[in-house]
């Protein structure tokens, strides 16, 4: 992979995000009940979609590593776990900023908010586990198993608004949302996906290089081998 490709992808993603945000802030009309605060959803909803996709990718990488044992899957898993933590954190902050003017509170122990908080805590724990376990094989296996267990919360997050009496509104459908609202949603989603894809690719490459350094014999040992030879 060319080193310039990820940077070009991030720039393209940033341009799409700028275009989608401009449409959402300046062109799209205020919503009937939520007024201008609705514009927060043009970044909140794409963040939620992206978070679910990244978590699903992490789950796929974990299964693939456990089945094949190939290190490339562990590098992708490390990258996607970190990105999942960033997106779940951002999702919670955006949600709190939206909740204050509409619900009157920054936080509520609502099923959707609580299950996302559980998800954030779980993946923060998996990221910490990767940081503290020194043996590469144990680290990869334990974090893959923990990711599979943590992923159980993802469908619970998605269906929480249907299963329980929730303050959070249910998912909208394409037919229930006006075109003026869909344009910034999908433009920002496309931009976010490009940025996230490029960052995960670079982070996975860093993880691969870090592992190479980690398992490489120390320079002193190499000198001894050369002397013996």
């Amino acid at each position, binding site marked *: 992979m060319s080193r310039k490709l*990820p*940077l070009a992808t*991030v720039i393209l993603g*940033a341009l799409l*995000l700028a275009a989608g*945000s401009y449409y959402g*802030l300046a062109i799209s009309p205020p919503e*009937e*009940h*939520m*007024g*201008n*605060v609705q*514009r*927060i959803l043009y*970044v*909140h909803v794409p*963040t939620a979609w992206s978070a679910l996709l990244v978590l699903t990718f992490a789950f796929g990488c974990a299964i693939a590593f456990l089945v094949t044992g190939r290190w490339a899957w562990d590098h992708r898993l490390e990258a996607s776990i970190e*990105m999942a933590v*960033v997106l779940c*954190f*951002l999702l919670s*902050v*955006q949600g709190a*900023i*939206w909740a*204050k*003017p*509409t619900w009157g509170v920054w936080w509520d122990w609502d099923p959707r908010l609580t299950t996302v908080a559980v998800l954030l805590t779980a993946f923060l724990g998996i990221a910490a586990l990767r940081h503290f376990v020194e043996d590469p094989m144990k680290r990869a296996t334990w974090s893959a198993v923990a990711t599979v267990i943590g992923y159980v919360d993802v469908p619970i997050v998605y269906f929480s608004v249907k299963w329980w009496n929730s303050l959070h509104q249910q998912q909208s459908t394409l037919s229930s949302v006006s075109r003026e609202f869909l344009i910034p949603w999908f433009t920002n989603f496309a931009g*976010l996906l490009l*940025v996230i894809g*490029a*960052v995960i690719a*670079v*982070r996975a*490459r*860093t993880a691969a*290089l*870090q592992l190479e*350094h980690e398992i490489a014999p120390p320079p002193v040992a190499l000198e001894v081998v050369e002397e013996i030879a």
Partner: protein
Amino acid sequence: MNGVVTGGWAFVWAAYIISALVIFGYAARTFVQNRGVK
């Protein structure tokens, strides 16, 4: 009180600015970290 949220631009700007800082801050950190490992 008429059931319509009025104003709120400060919340909107806060959400957009924090989102941009978090996403592009993390992206920049990842690119810098990658250069440091080589």
